[in-house]
């Protein structure tokens, strides 16, 4: 009998320790990532119960969520942020965990740092107290977000109690048109399948469009799986994956690497693999996409108008009305031309070097519109350095963008970067929830980094293809 298991099920089976009383699987976790916000209480659980960290070398810590991206002198002006920094430093010291702190060139947003350092590898199970852990699925790993009690579970046992999800294969065929990016692909998928379409599923992204994508583009897609309700999303490892991992600091070396690569490639879903569900989209029909509402499925192509209320069911109309009201928008209104106040380029969705290059290509030789505050926040110190070596910082600064230090910044606004009042922000991040960017009444429009740059330049939502 040939093995028709998809990658997800193969990797799950390999990491299964045993079945628990309730029927859950005790699953071994190959890589555990932690950051300053969701870990302190987990260490308290360990201390309260007198437990140690079982495999300290399999956990990596970094700081990203609360750090300022302008002045980084310690102690931070924000006393609460400073307290969290001291907590992660002490916890890592006490329990023997490697920490990429601010003074370490490897620091950055946790989901950018793991892949960059070669810690993220195909065939692993990866967990982090952060829902965008799905990013790491781009390598053909099972990667998902967990809560703080589960962070304690992983620290103390290197395992989790989980129920196996179903697997849906999402195929995107054809060729993306110019000006359409990975971000548009995932926004389109979420728009079509809904914010809860993926609950109970892992998503396998397959087909020509993903085959041709770089690893960075694949990470953008997998990153937002959770926005579609899927706790994890992945892409099968191929030569692109192997080439990306080769030579990175934590990747295997020499003949070990060759053996690793063979194993990784062997995990890919076979052509006749079985799935619980299948969906197909035509990639050539995807437009540059912009969200207009308060969840990531509420989006339209840049040249479309907002949907009519009557196209929704009675139950759904309440939520749609709430979204229109919060955003101060009306049905059938065009999204193009909508004024913005702030432009944010960064986050674990779109804060990698290729994102900055795409945005810089639009910004080059142009200037941010009067009255628009625009900032570029690289996803990691390495991305920042690379961008500087390519002169991207100069391009952005000449165009009137602020060039910042690495961190999460205005993706969730736990640091000093926040929207004010009713400001509208064109953002390359992943969530347009009410209040997400720091002002309880602030408004977010999600789009690709190139589209954010275009919006910054023209002062309103624009079609990036006019500036290419």
């Amino acid at each position, binding site marked *: 009998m040939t093995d028709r298991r998809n990658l997800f099920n193969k990797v799950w089976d*390999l*990491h*299964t*320790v*045993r079945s*628990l*009383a*309730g*029927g*859950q699987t*005790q699953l*071994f976790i*190959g890589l555990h990532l932690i950051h300053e*916000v*969701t870990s*302190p*209480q987990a260490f*308290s659980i360990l201390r309260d*119960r007198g437990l140690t960290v079982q495999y300290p070398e399999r956990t990596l810590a970094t700081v990203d969520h609360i750090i300022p991206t302008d002045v980084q002198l310690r102690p931070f002006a*924000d006393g*609460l*942020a400073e307290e969290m920094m001291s907590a992660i430093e002490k916890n890592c010291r006490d329990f023997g965990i490697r920490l990429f702190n601010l003074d370490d060139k490897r620091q950055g947003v946790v989901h950018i740092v793991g892949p960059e350092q070669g810690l993220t*590898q195909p*065939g692993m199970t990866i967990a982090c*107290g*952060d829902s965008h852990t799905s990013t790491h699925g781009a390598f053909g790993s099972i990667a998902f*977000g*967990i*809560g*703080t*009690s*589960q962070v304690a579970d992983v620290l*103390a*046992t*290197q*395992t989790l109690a989980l*129920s196996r999800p179903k697997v849906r294969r999402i195929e995107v065929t054809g060729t993306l048109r110019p000006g359409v990016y990975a971000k548009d692909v995932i926004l389109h998928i979420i728009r079509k399948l809904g*914010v*809860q379409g993926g*609950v109970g599923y892992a998503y396998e992204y397959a087909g020509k469009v993903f085959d041709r994508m770089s690893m960075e583009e694949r990470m953008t897609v997998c990153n937002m799986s*959770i926005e579609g*309700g899927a*706790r994890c999303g992945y892409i099968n490892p191929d030569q692109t994956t192997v080439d990306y991992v080769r030579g990175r600091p934590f990747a*295997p070396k020499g*003949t*070990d690497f060759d053996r*690793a690569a063979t194993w990784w490639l062997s995990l890919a879903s076979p052509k006749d693999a079985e799935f619980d569900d299948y969906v197909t989209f035509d990639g050539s029909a995807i437009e540059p996409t912009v969200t207009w509402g308060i*969840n990531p499925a509420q989006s339209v192509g840049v040249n479309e108008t907002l949907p009519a209320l009557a196209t929704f069911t009675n*139950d759904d109309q*309440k*939520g749609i009305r709430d979204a229109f009201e919060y955003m101060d928008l009306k049905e059938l209104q065009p999204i193009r031309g909508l004024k913005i106040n702030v432009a944010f380029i960064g986050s674990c969705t779109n804060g990698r070097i290729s994102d900055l290059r795409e945005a810089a290509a639009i910004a080059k030789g142009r200037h941010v519109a009067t009255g628009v505050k625009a900032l570029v926040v690289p996803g990691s110190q390495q991305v920042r350095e690379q961008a500087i070596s390519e002169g991207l910082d100069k391009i952005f600064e000449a165009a009137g963008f602020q060039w910042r230090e690495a961190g999460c910044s205005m993706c*969730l*606004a*736990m640091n000093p970067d926040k929207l004010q009042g009713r400001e509208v922000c064109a953002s390359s991040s992943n*969530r347009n929830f*009410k*209040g*997400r960017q*720091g002002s*309880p009444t602030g408004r977010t429009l999600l789009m690709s980094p190139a589209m954010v740059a275009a919006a910054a330049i023209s002062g309103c939502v624009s079609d990036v293809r006019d500036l290419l």
Partner: protein
Amino acid sequence: MQNITQIFGSGVPLLLDDIDTDRIIPARFLRCVTFDGLGDHAFEDDRLQDKSHPFDDARFRHGSVLIGGRNFGCGSSREHAPQALMRWGIKAIIAESFAEIFFGNCTTLGIPCVAASRPDLDRLAKAVEENPTRVITIDLLSKQVRSDEIVFGIEILESARSSLTTGNWDFLGQLLDGATSVKQTASQLPYMTGFKA
């Protein structure tokens, strides 16, 4: 761990869809190293903007059964969200559906999340509005919600249900018990041995 088979309490109607965890507890309150005190800030920004928010309504202040809509708890994995609800006084949630990470976080805290149909939720929410002190019983054994004349069936992931009803919802203890098997599994993973031949 205690067996959780039935939860009794009065209701808090919040029948909205796609309530995300940023709304349940805004990010600025995550600047903390303990979960203490989060209860005061549950739904803080929604409450500021909606003066009739049920969490500010004296009639529901002693409610412990939250009635929600579809995709409850979506978005961020922050356990601060169920912690804030629990510390506010919520002991169980009945909704049309739940986001997965939130559901798991609640189960680990011993907060049952049970799913019901929209018409049943509508009926229950309306009844609670009319009589906020009516007692709601969530019965995990018979998979039913009962409140006087209102009785309807509920769904819950079987593994979560059995963990709650048998007192096995603190997973850490069980996971620790598997230590020997964990070593065994780890030793067979190629990356745990550095891909050596």
